[in-house]
C-alpha cells in the first residue's frame, strides 16, 4: 500500500435486517485529497459514513485508517484517531447552549487534577465560540440560548463550526450546506477551501452539483448501496450530466458493473 493513503475501505458492507444499505464498498482517499460522495436519496452515503466513524458496527469488510486496520467501537474512538465528522443528523444536545454544544466532549477546563469533576472554563469557551461561528457566517442573536429552538441553518452551522474548530487527520461532512442560506453556504465553502489549502483531506457528501464541481478533486457515486463510479473531475473531462447519468443508473463506469 502506498504511504500517502489516509483512508481505505475494502468490501465494506452493512445490512439492516433485510435492507442491504451498503454492499462491498472499496474506497480510497489520499492525504490532502478532497472527495465528494454523490448519489440518490437512500443510496447508502450516510450509512458509509456511519461505518467509517464507528457510529455503527459494520456487517463485514475492512477499514484502514492512516495505515492501520481499525475497528472503532464508537465515535469517540474515531475522533481520538483523528476523524472529525458533521453528521447528517447533526448530533446536537437540544437543552444546551451553543458553546456547550461546540465543545461537547472536549470542554476547556481548569483545575484538571479534579478528574471528571474538573471545572469548566465558560469564559474561554464563549469567546472561542463567537470566533468559530464567525467563520460560518451564521447569525445567532444570543449564543447562550438553548439550541433546541434555533433555526435549521443555525443548528447546521453550529455543527460545522464544531468540526472546523479542531484539527484532524480526516474531515467528513454529510450534506453540510443542505439547510444553509446563500451567504452561509459561501462561507462554509470557504472553510472547505481552507482545509484544502492546509492539506487536510475531506469527504464531502452533497447533492449540489455546482458545489461539488467547485470544491473537490474527485467524485464517487453511490447507487443502490454500491459504488458505481469514481470520477477524477479535476483531470478528466466529466460534466454534470455525466454525473447525473451515473446517479440515475443511465451509465455505469467500467469496473463497477456489479452495481448495475
Amino acid at each position, binding site marked *: 500500500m502506498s504511504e500517502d493513503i489516509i483512508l481505505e475501505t475494502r468490501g465494506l458492507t452493512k445490512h439492516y435486517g433485510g435492507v442491504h444499505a451498503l454492499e462491498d464498498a472499496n474506497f480510497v482517499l489520499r492525504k490532502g485529497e478532497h472527495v465528494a460522495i454523490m448519489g440518490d436519496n437512500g443510496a447508502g452515503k450516510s450509512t458509509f459514513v456511519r461505518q467509517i466513524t464507528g457510529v455503527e458496527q459494520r456487517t463485514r469488510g475492512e477499514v484502514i485508517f492512516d495505515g492501520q486496520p481499525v475497528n472503532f467501537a*464508537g465515535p469517540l474512538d474515531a475522533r481520538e484517531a483523528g476523524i472529525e465528522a458533521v453528521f447528517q443528523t447533526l*448530533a446536537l444536545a437540544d437543552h*444546551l447552549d451553543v458553546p456547550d454544544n461546540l465543545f*461537547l466532549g472536549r470542554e476547556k477546563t481548569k483545575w484538571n487534577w479534579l478528574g471528571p469533576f*474538573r471545572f469548566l472554563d465558560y469564559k474561554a469557551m464563549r469567546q472561542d465560540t463567537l470566533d468559530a461561528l*464567525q467563520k460560518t457566517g451564521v447569525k445567532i*442573536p*444570543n449564543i447562550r440560548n438553548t439550541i433546541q429552538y434555533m433555526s435549521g441553518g443555525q443548528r447546521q452551522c453550529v455543527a460545522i463550526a*464544531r468540526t472546523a474548530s479542531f484539527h484532524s487527520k480526516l474531515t467528513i461532512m454529510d450534506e453540510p450546506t443542505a439547510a444553509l442560506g446563500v451567504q452561509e453556504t459561501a462561507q462554509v465553502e470557504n472553510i472547505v477551501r481552507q482545509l484544502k489549502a492546509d492539506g487536510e483531506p475531506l469527504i464531502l457528501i452533497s447533492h449540489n452539483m455546482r458545489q461539488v464541481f467547485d470544491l473537490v478533486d474527485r467524485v464517487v457515486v453511490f447507487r443502490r448501496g454500491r459504488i458505481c463510479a469514481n470520477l477524477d473531475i479535476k483531470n478528466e473531462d466529466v460534466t454534470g450530466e455525466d454525473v447525473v447519468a451515473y446517479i440515475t443508473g443511465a451509465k455505469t463506469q467500467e469496473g463497477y458493473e456489479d452495481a448495475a
Partner: protein
Amino acid sequence: MSNHSDGIGGLKYDKSKKAWPNELNIFFALIIIVLVFEALGQLLPYMKGQSMLFDFNTKRDGTILNIARIKIIILQVSIIGIIALGVTQVIISGGIDLSSGPLVGAAAMIVMSFAQTELVNGNPNPKAVFGAWAFDLPVLVPILVGLLFGAFIGLINGSLIAFTGIPPFIATLGMFLICRGIAQWWTRGQPVSFPTDQFAWLGSGMMPVFWFLLLALLFHVVLKYTVYGKHTYAIGSNEAAARMSGINVKRHKVMVYMIASMLAAFAAIILSSKNLTAQTGMGQFYELFAIAMAVIGGVSLTGGRGSIIGTVLGAMVFGVIQSGFTYIKLDAFYQLMAMGGIIIGAVVLDQWRQRSASARS
C-alpha cells in the same frame, strides 16, 4: 458575566426580556403555600388565630419565629432530600432510580449492624447482630461500609443500564426488589438498634439538615460548573449526540448511578442514626418522594433539564406541606388528598407561569 458579546448579529435581541429562571416559580409556589397556611390559621375558627411560622407568645424560644416549626419543616425532608440530590442527577441524565427507597432500608440494616454498642443501660445489647468483634467500632467503619454498599448497588444499576441497554426503570425496579430482599434477609426481619454515641451523633438534632445543605451546595457546584455536570445534561438531552460528540456515555452513566446510590446510602446512615434503629421497612416510598421533589423543582423527566436549587426548593415544598397539615390539624385522609392536590397544583402553577412568561414577552 460578559454582557455585550453573547450574540453574533441577526435578529433584534432584547436583553431585558431574559428568560425567567425556573427556580423562581417554585419559590413563588412555596411562598403561596405558606401564605395559604397562614391564612387558614387566621380563618379557621378552631385555630384561634395561631400562626404557622410565627409565635407571638414567644413562650418557648424567646423569638418571634416559631423556631421549632421552622426546624422541623426542613429537618423532616433532609433525609429524602439527600436522596433527591442523587435522583436529580439521574433524571437529568435521562434515567430514573426506583431503587433508592429500598436501598435506604438495606443500607440502614447493614450499617447499623456495624455501629452497635456493647452495653445498653448496663445490659448486653439485646439486638446484637454480630459477635463481640462488631461492638463499638469506630464510626468510620459503618460509614464506609454503607458507602461501599451504596457504591456497589449503584455500580450494578449503572452497569446494567449502560452495558446491557435495559431501561433504567426496569434495572432499578429489579434492584428495588433485590434491596428489599436484602433488607429482610439481613436479620430475618429483626430490627437492629442501639448504636454507639459517635454514630448516634451523625443524625442527631439538626445534623441531617447540615448534611443536606452541605451536599446540596456541593452538587450544585458539580452539576453547574464541572465537566461531570455538563456531560450529565448532555446525555439526558440527546444521548446519541453525546455519544457522537465523543463523550464516554457508558462510563458516565455508571458514575451517575453510583453517586446516586452512595447518596441514598448516606441518607440511610443519617436516617438510622437519627432514629437510633434500623428496620427493614425503612425508606418505603422514599424513591417516589425523592423523584417528586426533583420534578416539582423543575427537573424534567425526559432528561436534560433541572437544577439542584430547584430540587432543594421542591423538598421545602414537601416540608412545608407536611408541617402545615399538622398545624391546621387536617385529618389524615384529607392530608393525603390535599398533598396530592398540592403536588399537582405546584407543578401546574410552574407550567402556567412558564407559559405566560413566554407569551407576555
